[in-house]
C-alpha cells in the first residue's frame, strides 16, 4: 500500500522584495519570515560564525596595528589568499542568501541546498588557516626528521654490546714544573711498552681571550701492542683523572704497524692545574687498545626495555583486574533495566551514570598526573590512573551488556521451577559471558597501550624510559623501546582477537 501524505504548504508572511531586503539587513531573517525558520536560523548562524571567525583571524594576522583598516591591510599583506577569499566568500554568501530569501517566499519552489556546500567550503578554508596547515613544511625539513626516524626504525645496533679486553701501557711526564724528568719505564718481555720524548714540557693553556696556546709537542713511542689496531691515547693528570685528549676536535689515536709498534706526535693537552697544587706535577700518557671479546651481549637499553615492558604488561593487567572488581558491582547500579523499579533506584542510576561519564571523559593521562601527586612516581601511580579510568569505562560497557540481556531465557528457566540462583546461573550468566570477556580483554588491550603512554608523566612502565631516551636524544635506545611497544601491542591485539572469537 502506498501512502500519500498531503503536506500543507506554508504561506510566506512577506513578499519576495521584502524578504530580500530583510536578509540584506540580517542574513536569514528573510527566510525566517518566509516561514523557512530552520533554514533561516542555519544561514544566520553560519554567516555569524564565518564573520566572527574571519574577524578573529584578521585581528590576529594584523596585530600590533590600531584600527580596522590598518589591521585589514596588514592581514591582507600577510595572508592575501586567505583574507581575500574570506572577504569574497562573505560577500558572495550574503548575496546568495538575499536571493535565496526572495526565492523562499514562493512556497512551490524547491529547496536549493547548494548554498550549504559553499558554507562548508568556507568553514574548511577557515579551518585550514586556524590549524596552521603548512604543506611546504612537510618537505622542507624532512631531512632532519630522517635522522632520528632512521635510528628509531632500525635501533638494533644499540641492542647488543660486547665484553671488552684492554691492552694498555703508560709513561710518565713532568709538566709545568721544575725538576728531574720521570724515569723511562722499564721494558719487560712480551708486555706492551710505552715511552715519551721529551719527558717534560708545558701543557696547553688558555689566554685571556680563551684562545688556546699550544703546549709542548711530544712524541709517543709504543711497542708490543696488537698489530694493525686503532690505539687510543689517554692522559691522566697528577691526581689520576683520566681523559682522552683531542686534537682539532677529534680524539687522538694512532694505528699500530704490523709489528705492533707506533710513533705519534701530539701536543700536550689543556688541563687546568689548580693553584693549590704543590710540588712536581707528574702526568701520565697512556696508550690503550680496546677490543671486543666474546659473544654479543644484550645492551643496557635492551635489558631495561625488556624489564619495563614486563612491568607495563603487568600494570595493564593489574589495572584491568582492579577495574573488573570495582566495575562489576557498579555496573548493576548503572543498568537501567535493573534500576527502573522505583524513583530511588532511578536516582541512583542517573547518579552512577553521570559519575561514570565524567570519570570516563577525563583521560588516563590526566588521572596519572593526579595519581602521581597522590601516591608518588612509579608504576603504582599508573595502575591507580588506569584503574580509575577502567572502572568508568568497564562500568558503562558492562551495564550496557546487562541492559541488553534477553529476558526470554530468564522467564523460561523460572518457569521450570528453578530458584533465583539457578536462574542467574543458567539464564543470566551464559548471556553475560561473551560481552564480559570481550569487553574485559578489549580493556586489557587498551590498558597496556595506555600504560606505555602513562609513563611519560611519571606513571611507571616503558613510557618513562621512552621519554628519558628521547630527551637524552638517544634515538636508538628509544627505538628499541618503540619496537618493543609495537611488538607487545601487536601480539596483544592478536591474542585478544583470538580469545574474543572463542568466547563470543
Amino acid at each position, binding site marked *: 500500500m502506498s501512502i500519500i501524505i498531503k503536506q500543507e504548504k506554508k504561506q510566506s508572511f512577506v513578499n519576495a522584495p521584502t524578504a530580500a531586503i530583510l536578509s540584506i539587513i540580517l542574513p536569514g531573517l528573510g527566510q525566517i519570515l518566509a516561514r523557512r525558520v530552520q533554514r533561516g536560523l542555519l544561514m544566520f548562524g553560519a554567516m555569524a560564525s564565518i564573520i566572527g571567525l574571519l574577524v578573529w583571524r584578521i585581528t590576529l594576522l594584523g596585530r600590533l596595528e590600531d584600527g580596522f583598516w590598518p589591521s585589514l591591510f596588514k592581514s591582507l599583506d600577510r595572508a592575501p589568499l586567505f583574507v581575500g577569499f574570506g572577504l569574497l566568500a562573505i560577500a558572495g554568501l550574503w548575496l546568495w542568501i538575499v536571493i535565496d530569501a526572495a526565492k523562499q517566499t514562493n512556497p512551490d519552489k524547491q529547496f536549493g541546498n547548494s548554498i550549504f556546500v559553499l558554507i562548508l567550503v568556507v568553514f574548511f578554508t577557515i579551518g585550514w588557516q586556524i590549524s596552521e596547515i603548512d604543506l611546504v613544511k612537510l618537505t622542507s625539513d624532512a631531512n632532519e626528521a630522517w635522522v632520528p626516524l632512521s635510528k628509531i626504525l632500525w635501533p638494533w645496533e644499540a641492542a647488543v654490546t660486547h665484553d671488552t679486553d684492554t691492552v694498555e701501557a703508560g709513561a710518565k711526564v713532568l709538566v709545568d714544573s721544575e725538576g728531574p724528568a720521570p724515569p723511562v719505564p722499564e721494558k719487560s718481555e712480551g708486555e706492551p711498552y710505552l715511552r715519551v720524548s721529551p719527558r717534560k714540557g708545558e701543557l696547553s693553556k688558555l689566554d685571556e681571550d680563551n684562545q688556546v696556546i699550544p703546549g709542548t709537542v711530544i712524541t709517543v713511542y709504543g711497542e708490543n701492542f696488537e698489530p694493525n689496531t686503532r690505539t687510543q691515547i689517554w692522559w691522566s693528570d697528577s691526581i689520576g683523572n683520566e681523559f682522552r685528549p683531542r686534537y682539532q676536535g677529534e680524539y687522538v689515536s694512532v694505528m699500530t704497524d704490523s709489528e705492533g709498534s707506533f710513533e705519534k706526535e701530539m701536543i700536550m693537552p689543556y688541563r687546568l692545574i689548580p693553584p693549590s697544587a704543590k710540588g712536581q706535577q707528574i702526568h701520565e700518557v697512556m696508550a690503550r687498545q680496546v677490543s671486543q671479546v666474546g659473544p654479543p651481549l644484550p645492551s643496557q637499553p635492551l635489558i631495561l626495555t625488556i624489564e619495563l615492558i614486563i612491568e607495563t604488561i603487568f600494570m595493564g593487567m593489574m589495572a584491568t583486574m582492579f577495574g573488573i572488581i570495582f566495575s562489576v558491582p557498579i555496573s548493576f547500579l548503572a543498568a537501567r533495566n535493573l534500576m527502573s523499579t522505583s524513583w530511588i533506584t532511578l536516582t541512583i542510576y542517573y547518579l552512577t551514570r553521570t559519575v561514570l561519564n565524567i570519570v570516563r571523559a577525563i583521560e588516563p593521562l590526566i588521572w596519572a598526573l593526579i595519581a602521581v601527586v597522590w601516591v608518588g612516581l612509579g608504576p603504582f601511580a599508573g595502575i591507580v590512573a588506569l584503574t580509575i579510568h577502567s572502572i568508568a569505562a568497564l562500568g558503562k560497557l558492562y551495564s550496557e551488556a546487562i541492559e541488553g540481556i534477553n529476558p526470554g531465557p530468564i522467564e523460561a528457566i523460572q518457569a521450570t*521451577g528453578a530458584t533465583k540462583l539457578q536462574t542467574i546461573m543458567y539464564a543470566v550468566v551464559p548471556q553475560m559471558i561473551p560481552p564480559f570477556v570481550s569487553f574485559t580483554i578489549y580493556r586489557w588491550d587498551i590498558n597496556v597501550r595506555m600504560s606505555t603512554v602513562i609513563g611519560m608523566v611519571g606513571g611507571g612502565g616503558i613510557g618513562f624510559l621512552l621519554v628519558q631516551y628521547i630527551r637524552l636524544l638517544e634515538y636508538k635506545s628509544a627505538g628499541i623501546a618503540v619496537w618493543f611497544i609495537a611488538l607487545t601491542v601487536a601480539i596483544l591485539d592478536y591474542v585478544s582477537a583470538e580469545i574474543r572469537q572463542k568466547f563470543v
Partner: protein
Amino acid sequence: MLEIKNLTKIYPDGTLALDDVSFTVEDGEFLVVIGLSGSGKSTLLRCINRLIDPTKGQIIMDGQDITAAEASELRRIRRKIGMIFQHFNLVDRSSVLTNVLSGKLGYINPWASLLHKYPPGAKKEAMAALEKVGITDQATKRADELSGGQRQRVGIARALMQNPSMMLADEPVASLDPVLAHTILGYLEQLNHESHISVLCSLHYLDLVQRYATKVIGLRDGQVVYRGDREDIRKMTDGQFKEIYGEEAIRVNAGELNQGEQ
C-alpha cells in the same frame, strides 16, 4: 483440573490486561486462547505459573491455590507446568542438551546444579525427550545453530523434562511457517492424547484453532468475549470472529498464514 476465578491484572502503568477472567480447564483438554495482540493472552498464561503476579482473583490447580503459594511451594507447582514460548527462549550459547537438562532444575539440589551436576538418570531422560521430538542428532550443537522449528522442539523437550501435568504454550507457532506450525502443534496434540497432559495454548489463526482445540476462549481487551467447544468453533461465524478480532479482521486460510498480523 485448573480453575481460574475472577482473574484481574492491572500493570503498574495502569493498563488493565485481564478483567475478571474466569474459566476452567478439565484434565486432558486442549484449550486455545484466541485474541488480538494485546488482548491479554500472554498475561493470562504467565499468571498461571505466576511469571506475572495477578492483581486479583484465584488460580486453583488440583485443589491448590497457586496465587497464594509461597516461594518454595510455587517452585514445586511450576515444575508440574511446562511452558513453551513464541521466541523459544532457549539459552542460545548453551548446548541443546544443557537447555533440555535445565528443565530438570526444579527437581534437583540447587547447589549441585550450580556446578552443572545432574543426577545420573537425567541425561538419559533428556535424550529420551529429544527423541520424542525427533532431534537427538542435534544434542551437542549450540542452541543458536538450530532452525526455528528445531528450537521450538528443544523448548518442548525442555518442558517435557519437568514431567508436567499441564503445558502452557504462548503463541508457540507465531514465529514459524505453516508446515512447522502443524508439526509443533502435532507434538502438543500427541502429548495431550498420549500422556494426558492438558494444554493451554494461545493461537492467532482460526484454522489452526479449528484443527486442534477442544475448547476455545476468546479474549478482547482483557475480557472473555467468547467461549466454545470443538463443535462451536467449527461453526464459528464471521460475526463471532469479528467480535473477538475487531471489525477489520479478515479470515485468513492456511496459505496466507504468514501474512497475518503478528
